[in-house]
């Protein structure tokens, strides 16, 4: 049997050649390449797990502890975990609300001729390296927020309860990190959700228009229900990207390991903390950072498995229509 013609497995054609001596060098080449890929993937997980091992003796501190005392320990990861959750969920809310409207506008409102250009632009923006978003947030957005946005926020009711006192000397804060993350995952979300929305069969859309439905009724009652699962998949994928983002958050979150719910105060995230602390870390601190990496891996892998299965389910559902 050769793996090369598996696609034709059910076909009578392949039966005769299957028995032949087809395990040539080429067969082995692709088998070895894919085994190498499998080995690298196992090594990826195994190597990080192995170096994180010493830190799991203090697993409780690592997950629920406050404060990161380097270089002696204890190393508490609660601030990084809450920071990751706060920034990525806020960013996700912004990206989904604005992104959904944007995708609908691109599919239903932008003239057909411009649509490919807009779609390409969105995909290019999704390819912009995250360090660029971080740089923009750090050098442009941070001073602007200090000067113009924070005084505006201070006038809102319950401002001090939600946002806390603004850190006057530095721009970086959890809110800034959420905004930068939101702007950054927006193209990712729009790229996928636009595709999902435009994959809804045109027959359905035209049929409902012909029944006299308005544009909003078509979107609300036909397009969104048909695209629901795929949009959920796009949401989880964006969330996975937001939780794993490193350097942009490292630049704009402030890099302070405090459990902080006031959004104008500095904080950090798991990935950003690994990046900022790794340079000076030694011994036990390295394994504690590796253990944070394992946590991040668990979060990311479960999010991406959920989103993959959702997107696949959507594809199957649409194939049936």
């Amino acid at each position, binding site marked *: 049997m050769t793996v090369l013609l598996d696609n034709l497995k059910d076909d009578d054609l392949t039966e005769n050649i299957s028995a032949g001596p087809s395990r040539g060098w080429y067969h082995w080449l692709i088998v070895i390449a894919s085994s190498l*890929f499998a080995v690298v993937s196992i090594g990826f997980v195994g190597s990080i797990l192995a170096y994180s091992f010493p830190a799991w003796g203090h697993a409780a501190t690592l997950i629920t502890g406050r404060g990161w005392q380097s270089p002696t320990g204890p190393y508490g990861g609660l601030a990084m975990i809450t920071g990751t959750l706060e920034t990525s969920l806020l960013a996700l809310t912004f990206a989904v609300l604005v992104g959904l409207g944007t995708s609908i506008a691109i599919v239903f409102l932008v003239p057909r001729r411009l649509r490919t250009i807009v779609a390409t632009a969105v995909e290019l923006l999704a390819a912009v390296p*995250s360090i*660029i978003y971080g740089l923009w947030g750090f050098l442009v957005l941070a001073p602007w927020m200090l000067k113009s946005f924070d005084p505006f926020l201070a006038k809102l009711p319950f401002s001090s309860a939600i946002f806390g006192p603004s850190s006057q000397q530095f721009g970086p804060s959890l809110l800034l990190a959420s905004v930068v993350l939101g702007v950054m995952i927006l193209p990712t979300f729009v790229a996928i959700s636009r595709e999902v929305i435009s994959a809804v069969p045109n027959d359905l859309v035209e049929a409902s228009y012909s029944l006299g439905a308005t544009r909003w009724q078509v979107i609300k009652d036909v397009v969104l229900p048909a695209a629901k699962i795929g949009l959920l998949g796009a949401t989880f994928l964006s969330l996975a990207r937001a939780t794993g983002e490193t350097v942009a958050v490292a630049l704009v979150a402030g890099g302070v390991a405090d459990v902080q719910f006031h959004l104008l105060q500095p904080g950090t995230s798991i990935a950003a903390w690994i990046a900022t602390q790794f340079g000076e870390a030694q011994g036990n601190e390295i394994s504690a950072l590796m253990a944070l*990496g394992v946590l*991040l891996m668990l979060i990311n892998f479960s999010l991406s498995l959920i989103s993959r299965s959702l997107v696949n389910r959507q594809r199957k559902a649409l194939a049936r229509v």
Partner: protein
Amino acid sequence: MNPMDELTLTPSLTVTHDTIQLIAKSHRARRVLISRVVTALCLAALVISAVPLVLLLVQLVTRGASQLNTAFFTTLPQSPTIMSPNLTGGVSNAIIGTIALTVYASLMAIPVGVFAGVYLGESTSKFASVLRIVAQTMAGAPSILMGLFGFSFVVKFLHVGFSAIAGSFALAVLMLPVIAISTELSIRGVPNTLREAGLALGAKPHTISTKIVIPSALTGIVTGCMLAVARAVGETAPVLLTIGGGYINQWRPLNPVSALPLSIYINAKSEYPSERAQVWGIALVLVLFVFVVSLSARVWAARKQKRNS
């Protein structure tokens, strides 16, 4: 009275044609109004998402373009001092470092990724379906984890130390699943009739793969590789933990190197305005490179596809 003008709903309640029309009209007015409002909201969302992204690109170009000159590309960086705060030098070390890292990473990732992708595309074995899920999960893994892998495996376990090879290993791990997945999709896109035609001519399976399937899928495979390169060039987190940095022009695999994203990350936090200004130049070069590579990949693929169909 015309019987058509009067509808009897219940014996006690009669509704005239006019009333129905009135209700329908007011209902329609409401539907249309809601639809218009939502349409306006969607357009507003489009504008809201465009504004920050356009601002970012405009600022990148206006602030970055003034930094670019020959010295920027050809000289080594110099640290500004209090005496000469405008002294920054160029970023030749980071440019050479980024080129070296990208070339080594591509040499490692492209052969393995492409042939693993061929396997994923052609095989229906259990191993292939597991590997497919692994590839999809790895493709979405945070890049800082690739940095941790490069550090723990190459820097520590193999005792190579901070080096170009450690950084390019981390970047190769990042590129590998991206290349494998795009290759798989292109291989799957080749119609089975072509494979059957090859069989009918008496070709061996490996001849069918190398002479028929891969050439037909080549555009997609090359596009996937280019997009993977474009992604690897801009990644900061993996190189942050592995390459060590440095202020000399050097490309040797076993020595530390610098890289463009790393220079951005470090110089953005500089206390000298001159260094913070120079960062925009580096950022512009990086974004231009990423845009040129991914745009040309897309345009080339689209053109090929048009010619084939």
